[in-house]
């Protein structure tokens, strides 16, 4: 049987001056009908270049396929004309993207956007087109398609938008579906639903799916076969059970081992003094207005917690749960509507900015995005010493402290003279940690500090955070959406939903015996959960997905 997609010895070159000559080099794999093939790798592995080249959507000025063939149902499409490729897209192959908001046109109703596919590729009449669109929307289990037909993208949730994108790509019944990280931008519970949907549609239609992901949990849930890529080359491929259960290449082994386990290690309760506590913390956005006609969102509703020195408290929740709002209120980057935030004995929730400044050094934060957390125009040294110098440390002494901290976070002290763009994401996150430590804080807040990092780098940064917590006896508030990361690093966790803390307790207890239905839903939606963590929890470090 001819495979639907057959990639043979494909190489795509990068422009001169890039860090390597090829974006992808000599890769060979195929996708059969009725099969989901996952291409997995870290950033820069070439997995997205592969999918874009198949669709003919690669940046033609920078990327040139120089060798090999891409055969769709036996026909080489690398040499096809632009018109041919255009016809194949949609009719034979379709693609869904990571970000469902930007993949849809914000000013056209979604039904019309799905119908456009039919308008371009078929000669159906308007009535038949509409019937087809409604059928496609029913197929992806959208509620009330008749009504939603006229909705605009911003009126739908992220999961619904991704369903629309899937309906759009499948309305012409292509034989090949390419999904490029289609669930990365979604919450875990939504992600689980979308994965189930893709699997269901694939089984029903017998199409081939090329699924790009960085997430071994997703791989475990959805893949039939796995292709592991590193630096543009395939290092290992095979059936999912074989690659995940018995990886042969060291890189695959390293990736799988780097994935945190969902089983929290046992941790003794921490008895240090309370460094940070919040009492009845509220944050409302918007106001009711004079006549009560406005709309109020309770981003944080009566939040209470305590963090002791040497302890890590995790705040876990999906987007919109209010976990970042709590962190920003505690930092006083935004002002809480009511409640108390105590650092030591001082309530910083209500004091004026001028009085607050002297307390700022006690509480520091590491942000999610390593590319925006450092001022690109200032050297690393300037960034790290800025805080201490604000508090009267002499520049020379601050620089000396920065040097020490650089080696603590695992970077060369000479690198202080360099600019942020000369560092990788993981290195920048280390610099941000050094910057926070330079203030000699009591409390360190990590707001999704490892979420933007590749899994292998993530493990190292988690180790570093754990390490500096011990070394400097910090109280750590760890904000994350990722239960696996929370399981590894947190002593206690607090689960938030829509601004309310629904459950809190020691990490091991919450994971072993979740009380609230929402916590249970989060735990079971974690990708790869059924495959890896049902083996009695003994699989720690062995084959745990992220």
């Amino acid at each position, binding site marked *: 049987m001819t495979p639907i997609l057959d990639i043979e010895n494909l190489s795509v070159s990068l422009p001169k001056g890039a860090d390597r000559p090829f974006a992808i080099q000599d890769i060979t794999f195929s996708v059969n009908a009725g099969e989901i093939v996952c291409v997995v790798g870290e950033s820069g592995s070439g997995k997205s270049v592969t999918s874009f080249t198949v669709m003919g959507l690669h940046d033609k000025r920078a990327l040139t396929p120089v060798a090999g063939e891409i055969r769709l149902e036996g026909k080489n499409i690398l040499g096809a004309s632009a018109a041919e490729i255009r016809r194949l897209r949609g009719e034979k192959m379709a693609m869904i993207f990571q970000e469902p908001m930007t993949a849809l046109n914000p000013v056209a109703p979604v039904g019309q956007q799905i119908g456009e596919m039919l308008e371009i590729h078929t000669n159906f009449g308007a009535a038949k087109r509409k019937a087809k669109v409604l059928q496609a929307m029913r197929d992806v289990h959208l509620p009330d398609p008749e009504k939603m037909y006229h909705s605009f993208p911003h009126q739908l949730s992220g999961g619904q938008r991704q369903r629309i994108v899937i309906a759009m790509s499948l309305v012409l019944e292509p034989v090949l579906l390419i999904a490029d990280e289609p669930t990365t931008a979604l919450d875990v519970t939504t992600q689980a639903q979308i994965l189930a949907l893709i699997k269901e549609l694939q089984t029903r239609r017998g199409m081939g799916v090329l699924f790009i992901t960085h997430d071994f949990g997703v791989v475990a849930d959805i893949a039939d076969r796995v292709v592991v890529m590193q630096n543009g080359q395939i290092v290992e491929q095979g059936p999912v059970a074989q690659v995940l259960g018995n990886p042969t290449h060291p890189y695959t082994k390293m990736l799988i081992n780097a994935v945190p386990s969902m089983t929290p290690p046992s941790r003794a309760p921490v008895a240090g003094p309370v460094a940070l506590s919040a009492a009845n913390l509220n944050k409302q956005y918007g106001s009711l207005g004079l006549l009560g006609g406005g709309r109020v969102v309770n981003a944080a509703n009566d939040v209470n917690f305590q963090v002791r020195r040497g302890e890590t408290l995790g705040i876990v929740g999906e987007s919109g749960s209010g976990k970042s709002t709590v962190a920003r209120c505690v930092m006083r980057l935004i002002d809480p509507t009511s409640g108390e935030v105590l650092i030591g004995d001082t309530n910083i929730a209500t004091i004026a900015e001028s009085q607050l400044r002297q307390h700022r050094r006690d509480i520091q934060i590491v942000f*999610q995005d390593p590319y925006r*957390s*450092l001022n690109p125009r200032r050297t690393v040294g300037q960034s790290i010493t800025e805080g201490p110098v604000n508090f009267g440390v002499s520049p020379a002494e601050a620089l000396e402290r920065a040097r020490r901290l650089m080696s603590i976070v695992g970077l060369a002290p000479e690198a202080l003279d360099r600019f942020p*763009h000369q560092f990788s994401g993981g290195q920048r996150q280390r610099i941000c940690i050094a910057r926070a430590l330079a203030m000699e804080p009591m409390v360190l807040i990590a707001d999704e500090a490892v979420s933007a990092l590749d899994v292998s780098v993530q493990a190292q940064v988690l180790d570093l955070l754990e390490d500096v917590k011990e070394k400097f006896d910090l109280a750590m508030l760890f904000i994350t959406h990722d239960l696996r990361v929370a399981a590894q690093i947190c002593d206690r966790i607090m689960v938030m939903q829509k601004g309310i803390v629904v459950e809190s307790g020691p990490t091991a207890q919450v994971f072993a015996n979740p009380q609230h239905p929402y916590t249970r839903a989060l735990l079971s939606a974690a990708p790869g959960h059924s495959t890896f963590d049902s083996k009695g929890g003994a699989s720690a470090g062995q084959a745990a997905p992220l």
Partner: protein
Amino acid sequence: MVQNAPTLPQTPEQPSIWRIALRNRSVFWGGLMLVIIALVALTGGLFTADPMDINPMSRLKPPGEHGLFGTDQLGRDVFSRVINGARISLTVGTAVAVISIAIGLFLGLVAGYFRYMDALIMRVMDGLMSIPAILLAIALISLSGATLLTVVAAIVIPEIPRVVRLVRSVVLTVREEPYVEAAIAAGTKTWLIMGRHVLPNTIAPLIVQATYVCGSAMLTEAILGFLGAGIPPEIPSWGNIMSEGRTFFQLTPWIIFFPGAALAVTVLAVNIVGDGLRDSLDPRIARTMR
């Protein structure tokens, strides 16, 4: 302890803003033109006849017969007047650009960074924007007499809101950047945050804006001069020369043609530089152009 000896690439320091700009061809050639025009404006007066020198014997002479650009109705040398007029045009253009950018930068920073000042400043700016420069100039001159200063003020005032809007929009996005929040968390004083972390982001768009302000200010100055509402008529600005030549322009077009051409070439040079700067300094466009 994680020991991860970093492999630091030997990339050069970030190139300076001027070096990036000069790599662009239109910035280079437009800039060269401007430099020449500026040199002529600064030193040209030393080598030409007195632009005020009246010579009733050779009135309204065509170019070549008496002087390179001919003479006007009082027998003054048009070439000398055009060369000396360049100084006025460039002074007005530069002064308006510098003053409106300086005021606009300050107000824009304040409006963008302090929420409570935003509405106040922006409503005042909306008001200023509705005043036409020409009307304002006529009003100012009737109040305080025609001087270079009133002309500059009249052109500056309607330009300020455009700069404020630009700066404010940059500040609004930059103040949400995590590195600004990190600076707040590090206890950095507000004015230092603005100077260190916010202001540098406004420089590139402001340089571009400055060239457009400069070009349009030179045009407005000439229009004011032409209408008789500008620089005092005895000073040979390009607008004034054209205004005086208006009476005879069907018979002696050179009196209007040469200052007009000089104005066009200068504004063109400024705009070429501005376009080039926008291409090379705006990161979104620069990425696709390289």
